[in-house]
């Protein structure tokens, strides 16, 4: 994308998350725990043309970087996203992403009889069993969930 075509301006310091499957930008923000009340300037572009993907979403967050743990969580809903950390208008770091081996919190076990849905101290813990297609397993009751279920929960 040349500067002329930019829908939003470049950011000085922060994070640009590109190649998000179209329609999932809000879910990415949710995974990062950003709901707008934090005060970050956030630019969100949805359903723009992409050579690779047809349509895609982009998220730019000014004033906040994402760490490795967060970028791994993003793979759950946007496996091919690219995450660039920006300082002084330049990309200083491209985050390498892989599906996290353990996911704590965030997701809910769909099994109503799972201990994690019935004890205030039992927090969810999922372990990854397959990256592509995505399948993760509740560490307590072993219920497996797929990408579709993860997206349904995060969206």
């Amino acid at each position, binding site marked *: 994308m040349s500067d002329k075509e930019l829908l939003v301006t470049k950011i000085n310091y922060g994070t640009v998350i590109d190649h998000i499957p179209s329609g999932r930008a809000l879910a990415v923000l949710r995974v990062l725990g950003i709901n707008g009340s934090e005060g970050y300037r956030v630019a969100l572009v949805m359903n723009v043309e992409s050579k690779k993907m047809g349509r895609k979403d982009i998220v730019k967050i000014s004033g906040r970087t994402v760490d490795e743990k967060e970028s791994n969580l993003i793979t759950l809903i946007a496996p091919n996203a690219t995450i660039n950390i920006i300082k002084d208008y330049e990309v200083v770091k491209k985050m390498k992403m892989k599906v996290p081996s353990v996911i704590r919190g965030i997701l809910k076990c769909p099994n109503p009889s799972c*201990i994690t849905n019935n004890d205030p101290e039992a927090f969810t813990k999922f372990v990854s069993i397959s990256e592509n297609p995505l399948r993760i397993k509740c560490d307590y009751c*072993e219920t497996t969930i797929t990408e579709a279920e993860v997206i349904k929960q995060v969206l």
Partner: protein
Amino acid sequence: MPKHVISSLDLSKEEIELIFDEADRYEKLNRTSKELEGKVVALAFFEPSTRTRNSFDSAVQRMGGRTIGFSSSEGTSVEKGETIADTVRMLESYSDLIVIRHKLDGAAKFASEISKVPIINAGDGKHEHPTQALIDLYTVRKVKGYIDSLNFCVLGDLKYGRAVNSLLRLLTKFKPGKIFLVSPQQLRIRTEVKDTLNFPVIETDSLQDVIDMADVLYVTRIQKERFADEIEFEKVKESYKVDISTVNSMRKDSMILHPLPRVNEIDRRVDKLPQAKYFYQASLGVQVRMGVIHQVIGDSR
């Protein structure tokens, strides 16, 4: 870190053989020992149980230990809203080992993450019941002398049956022959359990097709509440009933096991046949659980 027994998958082949050898040894000693003298075992049965609770209780006492605990949530502080976590924290300070039975899936694993003393899973929801599986395979070993190469036919509710899950997973530590899983379509084994097995399974809804190949027929109860339609339940119940004619199609040297309680999935007239080994199986519960307790907190001689 304490040694817990949550899933059959937690046990190595070596540990399983050790438990079986210990069970043999306890039998020779008339199921008595003094190795738990001065020790207290908590039996935390949040869900009612007759066999499992009593055989654990008996096992501990026969080893010279004492038991504390409760046999249902009723009348305990759990009923007043105490969480599992808090109950476990209390029991771990009163005891050297906690045996837990709970209706929720994953409860035993959760307890093991809180407890400083070992946890033995005595059944958690539809998840696992590993000590039952140890009794099942120990029975096979007692009757046949070996487990490898035998054909197993598992019948009934394979979707919600925790004993079945634990049995199949315990079999992954051995080299069984063919494994037939016989159930109505809606009660087939869950994928997450099947995925943890290291042998192929043959799934069918017809017992007649496979019964003559079984060395071990493992029967489980099909519960009415799993069916939306009562007529459907009655039909299924009849087609999976083990009666004299079923046994007539079985190999002469085969055996029938059942984790009990039995309702009417095995005709009472079968009880007298040589293949019926389910009461013998239940009678081995104490010595196997002694073996498990020994493995977890017993003295190393």
